[in-house]
Every structure is written in structure tokens, then in C-alpha cells.
């Protein structure tokens, strides 16, 4: 029995490690490339450890545009975008799963259907709409679309469906109104899903490039991906700069991801209550 446990433990680590290596190789390459001089980037065979490592790329990233301001813009947008997404989507998901109303099912299908049209083709119409609303060059134009995120709604709907109705009824019997049921019962039970959504939504907003580029023409409102993109030229991609920039922009997402891990633990506890 103990032997078997040891074997399965070894097996676990072997498989985990193999996938981990595959996941990490490109990341390691990014780090190594960010430390290289321009000439050393595309050598054959791949140079994993740079011969003459330099931090020049990082210096360039920090100095060529107003870094603090740009990161501030990006942070503000991503935080607001994520907050609104989580709130608006979980409210909608709650209505769809726990309040029975006429048109429930067709409306959910409309939500889902809107995900099936490539954004490339609605981009110009949406641009025109934003222009008519006078929102161009305002942060709202980039943040407000978070009100409607079918992807998030659908994910939360899947999660809330698994919450037993008895739970909600019990709370209601105790005198909670619908909003209290939502906040005190439904939301805590969705914590792992909300944590996942928080990570992915933040990441999406943080990395979003084309839409902010279209909307925010004012230089002082520029976000990090836009600033990073202008570092590299048409004929001569500056890989070291590109990778240094990418790595720096990954840091906040990694932090948020690690913070979200705690909620996964809560999730397990919430599951424990269920029985």
C-alpha cells in the first residue's frame, strides 16, 4: 500500500514535471532573449544562456516612454474592466439561473450567440457607435464594454446551476431578500469561478491592444501594450526589447494569479459545506 502510494506519487511528479518543462521552455527563452544583444538573438542553434548578457533592453523599456503613467493607465482600465465584468456578469448569471422569468432561455441563447460573430467585422460599427456616443478618447470607451461579457456570464451560469436550490430557499426562509441571497449565498459559492474569471478578465483587458489603440488617441491615455508595440520597427524587430516588455507586462498578471490561488482553497471549503 505504501509502495503503491510512493509509486503513484513518483508518477505524479514525473508527469507534472514533463508538462512543466514544456510550459516553461518558451518562457525561459523569453528571459534569455530579453538579456541578449540584438545580434545574438536569432543564432542557430538557439543560445539558451546569453554570452554577453545585458540589461539594456529593460533600461530602454523604462526610459523610452513615460512608464509609470502608461502602467497607471493600464492598471486603472484593467481593474475597472474586471470589476464591472465580475459584478455585471454574476448578477446576470444569477438572474438566469435562480430567478425564473419569461424569456429566460431565449435571452441566454442570444447572449451566447453574440460570441459567435468575429469581432473583426463589428469593429467598425462599434467604432461608429462609440463616436456617436462621444466616447472616443475617453477611458469609458474601453471600460464600458465590460458591462456585457457573454463569455463570463455563460461561465457563471454553468457554475450557479450547480448550486442546489434548497440552499437559496433556506436563506430566503431566514428572511433574506433576493439581493441578499445573491450576495451572501450565491456569490460565495462561486468563488473559484469568480477567481478564475478575475484572472482571465484582468489578463484580457491588460493585454488588449487593438481596441484601446482605436479608442484612445491621446498620448497621455496610452496603455502598456500600445507603448510596447511602438518600440519595435517595421523591418527590424527588436526582439530583446519585445521580450523585456512582454515579461514586465506579465508581472501584474502573475501576481493576480497567485493571489487568486487562495480563492481556490476557499472553493474547496465551500464545496465541503454542500454535503
Amino acid at each position, binding site marked *: 500500500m505504501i509502495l503503491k502510494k510512493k509509486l503513484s506519487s513518483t508518477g505524479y511528479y514525473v508527469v*507534472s514535471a514533463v508538462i512543466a518543462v514544456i510550459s516553461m521552455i518558451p518562457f525561459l527563452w*523569453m528571459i534569455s532573449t530579453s538579456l541578449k544583444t540584438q545580434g545574438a538573438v536569432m543564432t542557430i542553434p538557439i543560445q539558451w544562456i546569453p554570452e554577453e548578457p545585458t540589461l539594456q533592453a529593460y533600461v530602454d523599456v523604462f526610459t523610452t516612454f513615460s512608464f509609470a503613467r502608461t502602467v497607471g493607465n493600464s492598471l486603472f482600465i484593467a481593474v475597472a474592466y474586471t470589476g464591472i465584468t465580475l459584478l455585471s456578469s454574476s448578477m446576470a448569471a444569477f438572474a438566469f439561473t435562480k430567478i425564473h422569468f419569461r424569456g429566460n432561455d431565449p435571452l441566454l441563447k442570444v447572449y451566447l450567440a453574440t460570441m459567435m460573430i468575429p469581432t473583426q467585422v463589428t469593429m467598425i460599427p462599434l467604432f461608429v457607435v462609440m463616436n456617436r456616443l462621444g466616447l472616443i478618447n475617453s477611458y469609458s470607451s474601453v471600460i*464600458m464594454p465590460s458591462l456585457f461579457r457573454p463569455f463570463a456570464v455563460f461561465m457563471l451560469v454553468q457554475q450557479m*446551476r450547480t448550486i442546489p436550490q434548497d440552499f437559496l430557499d433556506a436563506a430566503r426562509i431566514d428572511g433574506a431578500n433576493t439581493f441578499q441571497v445573491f450576495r451572501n449565498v450565491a456569490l460565495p459559492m462561486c468563488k473559484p469561478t469568480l477567481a478564475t474569471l478575475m484572472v482571465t478578465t484582468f489578463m484580457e483587458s491588460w493585454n488588449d491592444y487593438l481596441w484601446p489603440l482605436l479608442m484612445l488617441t491621446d498620448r497621455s491615455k496610452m496603455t502598456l501594450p500600445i507603448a510596447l508595440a511602438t518600440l519595435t520597427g517595421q523591418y527590424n524587430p527588436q526582439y530583446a526589447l519585445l521580450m523585456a516588455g512582454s515579461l514586465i507586462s506579465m508581472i501584474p*498578471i502573475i501576481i493576480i494569479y497567485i493571489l487568486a490561488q487562495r480563492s481556490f482553497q476557499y472553493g474547496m471549503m465551500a464545496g465541503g459545506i454542500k454535503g
Partner: protein
Amino acid sequence: MKRRKRNDGPGRDGLLRASPFLLPSLIGLMIFSLLPLLISVGISLTDWNGLDSIGAPGFFREHFIGLDNYRTILTGGEFWQVLKNTGTYIVLYIPGMLVMSLMVAFLLSREHRGVLVFRVIYYLPVLTSWVAASLIWTTMLSPQYGAVNNILSLFGIKGPGWLLDPKWAMPAIVLVSIWKDMGFFGLILLSGMVDINKSYYEAASLDGAGAWTKFMRITLPLMTPAIFYVLIVSLINAFQLFPQIMIMTDGGPYGATQVMVERIYKYGFRYFRMGYAAAFSWILFVIIMTCTAIQMKAQKRWVHYDS
């Protein structure tokens, strides 16, 4: 203590109670989604090039060409070839992605030492931008000097031309996409997995069930809502694959990786045929919707809600 009337039946009261919860996302739906979608339906009936000012008076009358765009697309050979390429991607990608992300979720749900480290590492590909990911994979998949073929040759296998070979370009795109997405979908499956009540496992352990049996009998059935979600979303995404194609192959070699959204983007923004591009995407919409509807119908057979 006031006891509230339980309201199960659909009706006015339900709508009234639901509306404050739905309102924010409904406003968003109208302005940021339905309105642009409606405009794009209109555009698909025109020969608009995507440059003329769209708001100009008489715009629609001047450019209206009826269903010509749809006819041209459906009767031309290109659409069917592109559909076939997209289908190849989906057929290879979905099962591979599902198996890999289940594996990731399974590994991450174990309470072994260091699982937190693995959780971060497995998520790194998701956090990497497609630009950076494409760059390194293009190098690693180089037929002559790439790491992948070098490893294969250790086992006496002569690796293919990957991105440079019309036969292997799409499989290569699939491999890189699975690599990029498995952490993402793995995390979603994980959040469905950690939700499962531990007492089920304890009961099964008492019955002497091994890890594999527990996974197949308890974990898998109870996480079907999460799997269903992953299937629906990944299929919709797979039909719309785009950035990896644009950066790694740009539709080549010899059109082997030309896919739906790549075409839509090029027609709209490179060839100045926005009406044609809009019609193309509404045809794509119908295809995706049909596939999703089938999935929805089939879910009753295998998805378990409310344990």
C-alpha cells in the same frame, strides 16, 4: 420574521425581480453588441469597401447589392477550402485540448507538495503573448535546427517541415494552440473540480477505489458542467482562430492555413471588401450556431447539474 412567497413559476413577478440583476448586462448587450451586429448585417448586404464614411446620408441605398456577397461566397471554391482548413483545425484541436486540460486540472487538483508552483508554471503559456509564443515556436519548429526535430531525431524519427510544409502546417498550429490553451481550460476545469464534495471521495476510498476509478466515477461526471462549458467556448473560439495564424503562417504555405477569420480580416482590412467580409462572418455565424445548438441538444444526455 416574514416568510416570502416562493416564486418558481415564470411570470411577471419573476421578470420584475430579475430585471435589476439583468439591467447592466442588458444595456451592454444593446449598445456594444446588438447594435454593431445589426449594422454589420446591413453591411453584409452592401459592396462597402470599409473606407467610405459609413454614416453618410444615402450610404445604404448607394451601396446596397442584396444577397450578392452571400452568393459569391457560397458558389466560389475558396469558402469551402477555407471551411475544410478550419474543420481540420477543430477536429485535431478540440480532443487534444480537452485531454491535455483535463490532465492539467487533474494534476493541479492533487494535494501534493509544490502543487502551487505547478499551478503557476502551467499557466505561463496562457500569460505569454501570441507574439512572443509564435516567435519561439517558429524557431523550435524549424525543420533543420529546431529543438523539436532534434529531439525527434534522438528517437530515430525524421521530423517533418512543420510550418513550412503544407501538410504539417495545420497540425503544427494545433500543437502550439493546445500548448497555449491547456492551462486556461485546465484552470476552468479545475474550478469545476475543486467544487466537488470531498465526502464523495472519502466514501469511495472506503470502498477501496483507486485514484483512476475515483477520477472516472466521481470527478468526471461531477465536472460535466465545466467540461460542457469548455467544449462550447473552445469550439466557438476554434472557429475563430486568428492571431496564431496571422503571426506564424499568415495563411501559408500555399494557403494551407487559410481559415475563416483570417479571410474575413484580410477581405475587410487588406483587400477593402468590407461587405464581403461581413457576409463571410454571418455565414460563419450560422455554422457556429448550428454546431452549438447540436451541443446544447446533446448536453441533456451527459451533463449533470445539481448533484
